[in-house]
């Protein structure tokens, strides 16, 4: 039987792994196919016969192939649906045509826009019919445990040997992440060496739905990016603010536009097109008011249905815009941020002093990583920067990550709630609080960075954001859904 099986096969049938099409395939497989082994294969004439079988078996061990793979059956099937999805859509990943009760590893990897490799893996066992699915079956090992349909995405970590202090953030929202998902034999650790890829599927993860338009904004001094949904409109709108990391982050806006909101990501700090020295905020209330008005004046925007979403320092800005600049947002979403400025103000318009001169509240852990949490303790915030919450006239949703190491979110939430209660405005306040979640509560299914590189000059500094993978992922998923429902309620009905 062995000789029959061997008589009709070609080299290619047996060892597809050794003839990887691209160099990248070979790197990913790490198949221990040494030059010597390759030489042996090419010299050898495949003839029916036991001695050949022994040689082939030896080479099989070298490549780490699982014993039940043969030349007479096709590889098992790995599928993902939908295979092109928005990042907040669930994907159903399944394996079929495996032997029954077979241990397998699902391994996902992708490159960030900067070219860093991120990866995750999980261990599953096929059922009696040789199938398994991530939506129904538990992972028994790897980057996450238990039944987690989207675990492969949110549990991704930078691949070993990569740059340190990475955080995954999509820069170019007009292209998708390409996630290569492989099915490997056995319960293996993919970085550990011997792997055999049985099947693979490529999934696209998009931050922008078809038809959404991206418009760079450089007018009236406003620096930002606007996203407009497809269709005639008019649409409700969102002003989108991030934190002291600065720059211009587009991915939450593009997602909101994909849900039918005209959305403006606004830069206010750390962007080459903004005025003044780069180490402080040089734009004031008028700047933010102008950005809000830009949305209001847009022909496709319903001018009295505009909300603001802010994370971290963006929280304070959100509250400040709503209470000081004269504009009237319809609702606010604040995530893990202070109700006052974390840097002293230099004028009544909100411009700030240099950041790094105020480090007295920075703390450091054993590994020299900076923890900013105490900076935003209400007692430590400049009193003249506190937002006057009694002036708040619209609903506010405040989201707390209880393991936030970068901001004193719980304390600020408490104070906001108390101030609103004193002002007789408790009915405006909604709080969501997530145990185990950190500072960076972002759109769902993206990995959390518990810490990441904060600055490289004058010296390398890593900051702690907090959050543990599984609870943080659950928080992101739940919070996003609740945010979207909240926006529906206050901006559409």
């Amino acid at each position, binding site marked *: 039987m062995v000789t029959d099986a061997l008589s009709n096969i070609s080299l290619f049938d047996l060892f*597809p792994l050794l003839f990887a099409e691209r160099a990248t395939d070979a790197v990913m497989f790490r198949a221990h196919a040494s030059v010597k082994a390759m030489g042996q294969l090419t010299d050898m004439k495949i003839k029916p016969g036991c001695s050949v079988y022994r040689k082939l078996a030896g080479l099989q061990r070298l490549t780490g192939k699982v014993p039940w793979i043969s030349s007479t059956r096709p590889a098992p099937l790995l599928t993902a649906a939908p295979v092109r999805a928005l990042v907040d859509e669930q994907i159903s990943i399944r394996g079929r045509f495996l032997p029954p009760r077979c241990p397998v590893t699902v391994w996902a990897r992708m490159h960030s826009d900067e070219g860093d490799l991120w990866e995750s893996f999980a261990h599953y066992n096929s059922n009696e019919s040789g199938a398994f699915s991530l939506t129904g079956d538990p992972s028994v090992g790897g980057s996450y445990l238990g039944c987690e349909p989207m675990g492969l995405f949110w549990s991704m970590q930078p691949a070993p040997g990569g740059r340190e202090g990475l955080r995954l953030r999509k820069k170019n929202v007009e292209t998708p992440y390409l996630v290569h998902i492989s099915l490997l034999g056995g319960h293996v650790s993919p970085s550990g060496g011997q792997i055999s890829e049985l099947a693979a599927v490529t999934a696209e993860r998009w931050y922008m739905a078809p038809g959404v338009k991206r418009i760079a904004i450089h007018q009236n001094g406003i620096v930002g990016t606007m996203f407009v949904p497809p269709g005639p409109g008019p649409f409700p709108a969102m002003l989108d603010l991030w934190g002291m990391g600065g720059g211009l982050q587009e991915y939450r806006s593009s997602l909101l536009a994909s849900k039918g909101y005209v959305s403006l990501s606004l830069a206010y700090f750390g962007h080459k097109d903004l005025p003044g020295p780069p180490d402080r905020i040089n734009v004031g209330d008028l700047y933010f008011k102008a950005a809000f008005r830009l949305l209001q004046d847009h022909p496709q925007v319903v001018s009295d249905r505009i909300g603001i979403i802010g994370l971290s320092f963006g929280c304070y800005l959100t509250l400040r815009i709503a209470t000081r600049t004269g504009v009237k947002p319809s609702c606010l979403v604040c995530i893990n941020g202070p109700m006052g400025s974390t840097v002293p103000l230099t004028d009544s318009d909100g411009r700030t002093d240099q950041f790094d001169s105020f480090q007295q509240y920075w703390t450091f852990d054993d590994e020299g990583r900076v923890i900013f949490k105490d900076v935003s303790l209400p007692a430590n915030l400049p009193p003249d920067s506190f937002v006057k919450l009694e002036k708040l006239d619209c609903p506010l949703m405040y989201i707390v990550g209880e393991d936030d190491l970068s901001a004193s979110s719980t304390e600020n939430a408490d104070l906001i709630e108390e101030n609103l209660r004193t002002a007789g405005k408790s009915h405006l306040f909604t709080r969501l609080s997530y145990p185990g979640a950190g500072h960076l509560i972002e759109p769902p299914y993206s990995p959390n960075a518990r810490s990441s590189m904060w600055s490289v000059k004058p010296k390398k500094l890593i900051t702690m954001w907090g959050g543990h993978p599984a609870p943080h992922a659950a928080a992101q998923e739940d919070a996003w859904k609740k945010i979207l429902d909240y926006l529906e309620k206050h901006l559409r009905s």
Partner: protein
Amino acid sequence: MPQQLKMEEKPCCVALSVQPSRGLVDEKFVVLVQNTVPSCPLTIHASHQCEDGHSWHAFAHYTSDASGVINVSEDCSVGGTYSGVEAMGLLWSLKPVPGSKPGLRMRKKNVQAPMVITISVYKGHLTEGFGDQVPLAGTEVERWYMAPGVRRIAVTEDGLTATLFLPSGPGPFPGLLDLWGGGGQLVEYRAALLASHGIAAMALDYLTCKYTMETGKMVEQDYFEAAYTFLQKHPKVLSSRIAMLGLSLGTSITLKTAVYSEVMKLRCAVSISGSHVQPLDGFLKETLGYFNENSGKTCFTEDNEAIWRNLLLPIPTDPSLKVDVGKLQCPLMLIVGEDDQNWCAYESAMDIKEMMERAGNSHLLTLLSYPNAGHLIEPPYTPHARSSLFRDVKSRQMLMALWGGQTLEHSRAQEDAWRKLLVFLRKNLYGGVKSTSPLSNL
């Protein structure tokens, strides 16, 4: 309390979503309209401009429920290009817009780019004038024949005119030769879709291929053998698991190959809208010649549409004029539309079934027969053409061919047949090591 909105007021933020917004052609989507005025008549409209520039549209009339919601997968259309509860009706009921050139048929040429469809919601129950009104909301949907990671490879070696689609992953994959019918050309979209489901599928042009265009001669059996061998030898194809799928004239080749070929050992075969009737002597040229001899049996409708179904009728009793399906040794799926006006597919299927029952190998046969489905049983959720302009490759004559089928039932047939086709292929190409028995529960 939700505010009472009058219809005259500026409509606030009707939300229209389609999920997934980027899907494979055979994936279902959910069209959801929210935040409309409750109990409001609305029209949902789909429009698409195909590659040759023609405009297609579909539309359906709904009434929003008490919460201002329409869910196309659950709610009933009361009029338009489809009615009833039809989740995918906006796609399969697409028709050329009024004023279009007659005889159009939508076929994707470039499978590496998606079909883009604009879906909109309009106030009221409209049947025309969509371009003149501003919709309440609109969105865009992409429909892809190719999944990410599928590789498209042009094949010209060994004299072949073909395109191979490889699924993502290391393989090895089962292989499939994909054959279309008498219109010729290299039609890629079905093969691309099959590769998106894990099968290394090769679309093969055998009527207008390079050899035929250069020599004026029809290809012989060795052309198909070369295609089969190419697949067999391919490093990512499992040589013992190669199937053949043929539609229309492609069925003639598929059945002959499945029964008689010494070189091409098919793991399984699928024949759509075709017949086993052909002279056993010879191959393609002789088969086409036989049709030609019978061309006098062509009928025409009042609208001058050609009906070719009678060419092979009555089903001959002479065994030298039919593939001896009693000798078939691999599983065969037959898909036929009972309203096929182009080929006598249904009658042929009945005869095939009877021949196999007599020979004792009918356990290999899976027969799917669809009342009111026509000839062009294609991947689902694509428009149905009851007739279209057809250029016969031999005569180079352009005629209006009647394919048959009633749109609703034809579209249901496409959906059902495709699902069962995939199950059949997967079971035979992925499952089991022994030669398999037919599917007990489809």
